[in-house]
């Protein structure tokens, strides 16, 4: 594949430590395609690429796009799991294509790649992210403070800082929300990512907007729709304990303590 060819062609001293060590092999990708300008519905197309076990699925997609079929469309940017652009359904599981190595999925069988579920497909692997960001914006994902601002930084103990550390890791890739069966069936549900981002502020000792946010999440499309299936936790490429965060928000609603 592309990355492989570059590694073996390269002579300038930046070679992968794996070059020449890890054998390459042929991988089949079965990709969901849809171009609204020409197609009436989604269909599958199959591609073969040469890959190393340590290559990313994103590398395989790039090889297809760059060397076989330029019309294949997907989003990507950082290519190492921090920008959140390339969440997709790989072998039926939501993952980041840039954080999934070929060896992490069974390369002996065709690797299926589909757009994440529950958001309108715009083209191939690209979905409309607006409903997702709308839900995010609704939970007031920003620090709300009362009283006078201090001249220097606010004081916060490291323990208080650690209280919400897990949910600060969210990169808004939508892997969690679009793995949630409740979200698939009910587009009105805020979804896990929005709740994670509400959690990030509700449990920040500097924040005074917890009550407002909890009121929003107490809505019939709020946290109570969660059926604790843990799909979201499994899907999160950042390792956030999403279901736990949702449970903590539920508990805060019941006890009014946070």
């Amino acid at each position: 594949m592309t990355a492989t060819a570059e590694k073996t062609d390269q002579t300038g001293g930046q070679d992968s430590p794996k070059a020449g060590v890890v054998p390459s092999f042929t991988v089949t990708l079965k990709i969901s395609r849809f171009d609204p300008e020409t197609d009436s519905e989604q269909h599958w197309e199959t591609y073969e690429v040469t890959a190393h076990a340590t290559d990313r699925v994103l590398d395989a997609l790039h090889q297809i796009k760059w060397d076989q079929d330029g019309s294949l469309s997907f989003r990507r940017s950082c290519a190492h799991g921090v920008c959140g652009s390339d969440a997709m359904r790989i072998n039926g599981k939501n993952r980041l294509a840039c954080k999934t190595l070929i060896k992490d999925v069974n390369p002996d069988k065709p690797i299926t790649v589909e757009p994440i579920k529950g958001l309108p497909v715009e083209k191939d692997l690209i979905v409309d992210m607006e409903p997702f960001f709308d839900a995010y914006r609704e939970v007031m994902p920003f620090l709300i403070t009362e009283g006078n601002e201090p001249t220097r930084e606010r004081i916060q103990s490291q323990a208080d800082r650690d209280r919400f550390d897990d949910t600060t890791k969210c990169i808004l890739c939508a892997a969690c929300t679009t793995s949630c069966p409740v979200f698939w069936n009910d587009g009105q549900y805020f979804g896990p990512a929005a709740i994670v981002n509400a959690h990030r502020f509700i449990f920040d000792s500097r924040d005074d907007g917890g009550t407002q946010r909890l009121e929003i999440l107490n809505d019939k499309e709020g946290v109570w729709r969660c059926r604790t299936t843990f799909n979201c936790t499994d899907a999160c490429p950042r390792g956030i304990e999403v279901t736990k965060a949702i449970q903590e928000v539920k508990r805060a609603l019941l006890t009014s303590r946070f």
Partner: protein
Amino acid sequence: MQTHKYDVVIVGAGGAGMRAALESSTRTRTAVLTKLYPTRSHTGAAQGGMCAALANVEEDNWEWHTFDTVKGGDYLVDQDAAEIMCREAIDAVIDLEKMGLPFNRTPEGKIDQRRFGGHTRNHGEAAVRRSCFAADRTGHMILQTLYQNCVKQGVEFYNEFYVLDLLMNTGPDGVEHTAGVVAYELATGELHVFQAKSVVFATGGTGKVFKTTSNAHTLTGDGMGVAFRRGIPLEDMEFFQFHPTGLAGLGILLSEAARGEGGILRNADGERFMERYAPTIKDLAPRDIVARSMANEVREGRGAGPNKDYVLLDLTHLEPAHIDAKLPDITEFARTYLGVEPYTEPVPVYPTAHYAMGGVPTNVETEVLRNNTDIVPGLFAAGEVACVSVHGSNRLGTNSLLDINVFGRRAGIAAAEYAANAPFVDLPANPAALVEGMVETIRTRDSGERVADLRRALQETMDRNVQVFRTEASMKEALGVIDELKERYAAVVVQDKGKRYNTDLLEAVELGFLIELAEVITLGALARKESRGGHFREDYEARDDVNFMRHTMAYRAPVTDVEQGPKFADEVRLDYKPVTVTRYQPMERKY
């Protein structure tokens, strides 16, 4: 084609663009146009921290920070700009904390600080704890915090709008003013003309000129390229930073914070080789020195691995709990992408193209310069796309996050204030013609050269010939390849002929910018017959202050509105601009 009208248009929604938007949108009608969803911007990949002399954990002051910045930049820094940045750094950090940024804390609950390369106490005595951080996710937290505050303020974003042209027109005073921009809407393929009194470029860098890079696929120098095609110069483009610790073979960034927290670089013999190159601050020397030292170890046969082509970043002496608390993400990168466990094994690393010190020249008010002295009224730039120049020939670690916050803020204020007192300038006739010609020519061409082939050839020659070590011969070889690629690019073809989300077309357009910028980088490097900061000439190993303590200014005659899209016909012309020196005279750079 749609036409929109705003007082201020900001191009780019990374740290600089959103910091500008927070200022501008409270003052006047502002739109942010961004190629990516804001939270995808590469600011989010920054890791180690943002320096400011808060003195929360030990004595420090902004004057020491200024000195370190000037010395780190090998005296090519404009010292007035560095003073402003280091002085305003303190408020910039405090502002972010007040916006909600979750910094790591000291036992007293203040913002914690740690050591970083080239940041020292009292003009080089010893490393100082100056970097304010949130684990190794500081950029992520900055990007998220700025976006959260943009949501709070209701900032108006046009997501996945790719700006491809800058519009200018003669104003009532007979001078060329900024009139707006032309954007390509990725979702529909439609062109949009944005008329604006002020335009702020905050489009980031151009790391994809190189093959081995820490940069995102989308960092293709668009803003620099758009400005350059309209006759605006580019400053100091030959200075490109190669970050020492990219994951070997991949280029993925491993923060300098790894060394700030105690990590050590070793060669194949296990030797801590930085003791030989920088006896005082060793592994925490500035990036240019560390990158060169690493490349030299490999070149002299002391590299590790089966091909002896990398060195090792050793964290094994650190407590796993300490690693988890301070460096969680980068250790996960090592596990995910190389299968290496940093608790027990050293991590293979090699320099990776990381940061453009050069860019669109601005003054300290972020106004873009059309030459050494005159501004382009209504045009502003901040962040990596700009060259103000606070980084000189080598940026210190953490100073980019600082730069985007300090100068992003300044750009937002300056753009809004300019718009408050300026009239709209008329749009030029047929404002979208250039972009339409360029995009449609590529999209409808039946056969020709493939984008990926040309891009690979470009990136390979840049890695081989214009990387850490440069010579006249290597750069002439690169220019030969670039010349050939310019010709081949004139016949570039895409397979996707559609209008919706045509990322094939997008990559073809991006490649045009990459080729142009590679040429400017290489020409500047060839003409600079000295070694300074990130630019190292094996045929001119010494710094030459007599002939080269000056900024390079590259010019190309502006394109005309040809229906066939921009041509590469005009030669690049190089000129020079003096460095602003206030209190630090150049001296030998030792660490």
